[in-house]
């Protein structure tokens, strides 16, 4: 066929290469059984669940779930195609799909740019990517002495003159009434 180059056949008789003696495959490296904290269960995108889930391993939802989830010290993930409606309690929670409900995380809540979230979040820390479709309330766990009222700035305290010391555009102002 045009365009295809073919190796010139040699006159040398073709000899079938000697089959190498089969060597026994080296034994796979010893692998310890995954611990409960490493095990991950994924609910596939064609699966719908209605009801309560309680477990001791990580859970990823790619399908639909309507109901509450309680994972003691494990992580909960809503994948890109996942749809969840319920109350979620877990160590860390990551949302890339849809989640409507209440979230209580002992650790971190991560809301990616693909997420569609509607509900309330209580967590130790939170990260929200620009572009997330987000509507919700956020309550961060704080030390007991900062529980009530409007807390002082958590970072280094801002001196009253700090803002003014900057090349602020607000030096010339006029009160509107």
């Amino acid at each position, binding site marked *: 066929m045009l365009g295809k180059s073919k190796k010139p056949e040699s006159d040398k008789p073709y000899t079938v290469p000697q089959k190498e003696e089969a060597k026994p495959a080296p034994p796979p490296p010893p692998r310890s059984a995954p611990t409960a904290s490493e095990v991950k269960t994924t609910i596939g995108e064609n699966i719908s669940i209605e009801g309560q889930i309680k477990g001791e391993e990580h859970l990823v939802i790619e399908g639909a779930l309507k109901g509450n989830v309680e994972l003691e010290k494990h992580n909960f993930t809503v994948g890109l195609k996942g749809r969840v409606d319920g109350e979620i309690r877990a160590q860390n929670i990551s949302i890339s799909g849809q989640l409507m409900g209440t979230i209580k995380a002992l650790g971190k809540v991560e809301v990616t*740019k693909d997420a569609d979230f509607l509900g309330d979040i209580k967590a130790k*820390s*939170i*990260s*929200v*990517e*620009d*572009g*997330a*479709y*987000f*509507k*919700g*309330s*956020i*309550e*961060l766990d*704080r030390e007991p002495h900062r529980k*009530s*009222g*409007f*807390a*002082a*700035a*958590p*970072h*280094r305290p*801002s001196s009253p003159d*700090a*803002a*003014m010391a*900057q*090349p*602020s*555009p*607000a*030096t*010339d*102002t*006029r*009160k*509107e*009434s």
Partner: protein
Amino acid sequence: MAPSPAQPRGYSDNQPFPAGYSSTILKLFVESLARGNDVQALDAGPVCQENINFFAQRMRRHYACDMFIRLQRLPGEQPRPGNLVRHLDYPARSFDGIELWDLIDHLDDDQARQLMARCSEMLKTTGVLMLIALEKKPEPARINTFVVGRDYRVGFRLQPHLELAWHCRHNRALMSLLAEFEIVRSFRYVNGLREFLLKKPTLTRARIGDW
């Protein structure tokens, strides 16, 4: 409002936004909230990690409803009056503070009026509203998040996923939209960026009688 000549070094008037500035209105807004107990505030977007942490670490509960991304999706929805503000379905007098960064610059007059009326409903009697508005459409007309940093310094981060209409207004037009509020303080920057701290009007005896 007299424009301030002061700008960060290296700033040119051609830039759509200053490279970053210290926001006195933000400082006043936070100080106003700090006077209350169990305060709750609402950020109308765009959703921003730094801002969520800034406010959530300072108050009992912080609310965020990204109206920018809802506005972006609005064209695909069935148009009807109140389409946008229906997302702000919070009970009346829920919030001590509301942050409207430059949302009003992307709303037509009807939408802006509906938004301000809704904000007035959602604010507590003693609540304050922080609003930012540009006088003219920036070039290039890209949408940025106002990112709160340390010491009330505000930076900007491009939001490439947002493409919204611009409805920048001169003072007179803007003031007519803010008529439901009293202006506590306002600042105008050389590049036309304006910041407002607003509150609900104090009820006079006659108006209390109307209630």
